[in-house]
């Protein structure tokens, strides 16, 4: 999952970014409100982590503009202000959740996963797909109940495909999920990872639509 982090404090930004990366998120970090809007317009992020006290354009302004533009992506507010008024204003402006600083990285990751899960319409945190089970919290994938070892990128790719089963996703879309701005994209990386996934989980799981992209085949088809 690719997350946009808008946070002006460099130490907090760096720590959140590293912590979320350890939890399997790809994090892009912007230090002010204008940069956040610019990044949002790329539409590659699955969720926004928003600090309210941003320079140049406040978090609340970014959020309001985003919702007005019809952007429904999940937004989690990070705020140093614990005044109830700020939180209420944030939620009223269209935020999905909030965390008051200082917060635990584990809690932040858990809330992000919950937001992403809710957005894809699932209540169960574990994505079950035929004989395959993917648990975003523990980052474990089981086939017929047996643990399958996957690399971080392989997991991210599988998660991207399974969250929207039946939808064809292009190479660029999938690359966006796998790589942040600062990561060098290896050529053919998507093919390499899909090859590995097919090998580990079965050739039928991921279907290639030539010239368009990849999709997770419907479970009944796959079975």
């Amino acid at each position, binding site marked *: 999952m690719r997350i946009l982090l808008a946070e002006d*404090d460099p130490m907090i930004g*760096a*720590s959140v970014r590293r912590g979320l990366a350890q939890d399997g998120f790809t994090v892009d970090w912007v230090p002010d409100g204008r940069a956040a809007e610019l990044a949002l317009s790329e539409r590659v992020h699955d969720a926004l982590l928003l600090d309210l006290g941003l320079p140049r354009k406040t978090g609340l302004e970014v959020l309001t503009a985003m919702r007005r533009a019809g952007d429904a992506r999940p937004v989690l507010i990070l705020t140093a202000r614990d005044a109830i008024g700020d939180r209420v204003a944030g939620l009223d402006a269209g935020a999905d959740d909030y965390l008051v*600083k*200082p917060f635990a990285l584990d809690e932040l990751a858990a809330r992000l996963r919950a937001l992403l899960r809710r957005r894809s319409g699932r209540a169960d945190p574990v994505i079950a797909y035929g004989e395959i089970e993917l648990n975003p919290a523990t980052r474990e994938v089981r086939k017929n109940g047996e643990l399958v070892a996957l690399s971080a990128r392989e997991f991210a790719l599988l998660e991207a495909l399974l969250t929207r089963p039946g939808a064809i996703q292009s190479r660029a879309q999938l690359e966006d999920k796998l790589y942040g701005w600062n990561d060098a994209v290896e050529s053919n990386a998507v093919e390499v990872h899909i090859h590995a996934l097919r090998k580990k989980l079965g050739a039928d799981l991921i279907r290639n639509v030539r010239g368009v992209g990849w999709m997770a085949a419907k479970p009944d088809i796959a079975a």
Partner: protein
Amino acid sequence: MRSIRRQLLVWLLAGLSVAIVGAAIGTYLRARDEANALFDYQLKEMAASLTDAPFAGVPPAASNVAPGPDTLVVQIWDRNGVQLFMSQPRRVLPQHAQLGFTTISTESGEWRIFSTLSGGQVVQVAQPMSARRELAASLALHTIVPLLAVLPFLVILIWYTIARGLSPLDRLAADVARRSPKLLEPLAEANLPREVQPLIHALNGLFERLGNALAAQRSFIADAAHELRTPLTAVHLQAQLAERAGNETERKAALSELKGGLERATRLSEQLLALAREEPGVPDRPLVRVDLASIARGVVADAVALATAKGIDLGADANGEVSVRGDANALTTLISNLVDNAIRYTPAPGRVDVIVRPERAHAVLEVRDTGVGISVNDRPRVFDRFYRAAAAQATVAHGSGLGLAIVKRIAERHGTDVELAAGIDGVGLGVTIRFPLAESA
């Protein structure tokens, strides 16, 4: 304790008593004068009525009426000095040679005498003065008795009036007692006597100053708590990352970041403390004669290592002794804040100059650099605490936003202000502070 009520009562009663005694004396004196005139007229009339009747050897025994104290004594002599008549044989007054009115002293007190010569006879009518005095005294007594009778009522009236007049003070006391640090509204001035108004004005002025000081303190604490939360959040996150570290390399990197976070939080709390020391309301340390040049040299010596590490040429031009009246600790904080700022916001290779020189009646402190400077738009605001100019934010991520606020407070306490301009050769920032030169000891 002195009581206004008792004091007023004592003085009013004393005044009243003096007035009553004065009235009595005045009445007595006037009554005596009137009695004198009246009785003198009476004596004269009596003498005149007697001169028309010639006496010839009327035996004195014929009259044996016992004399009253105020009785008139009439005596008549012929031209040879033979007494022809005396009204009261027991009261014998000497024949007085002088005609007309006289007052004489005898064993039986003072007598008023009128003598007249008519038809070869001397008629002398006498009356004791005590009679007149008694009349006057009785008149005076009649005047003051009613006044004395009214006195107790007056005391009650005065007591009540004073209580009534002072009751606004009781209400005021209750009103003041209701005030607390949370409730410092001005006292109502309506319905209070004019005499109490100055007190109300003074109290309201005090409440206002107190309220402002408290509000400033509250906002300072709120700001401080808010600003401390950011570095503490960073430390919190850095500690979690260190905890999660899977191997030695990761742990070392995480701990090094944690150390950076702790240094930043420490510096912020130190800056907050420095600012709190300069907050209005804190008792000022006394200003004494200190050598600004030597303080500047000391600060530069301390900062050289940092400057060199950053590739910045830091130097002092502060020779000899330039004395000002100041607080050495505060001035050290002021100069080191300016030098720290200059080093922070000057990219390598750069230069920072610290200059102290006397200029007429001033000791001028200048800290100039070749750094990013402060735009003209930002200059008025950089002294607000926690305000950070955009250029500053872009250059140094972890400034506290307090350095210049502290500098300004300290400068103000030393009776001067901070001027911002361009720095060396029009680049960077130049900060100038003019202290009044200390008079030579």
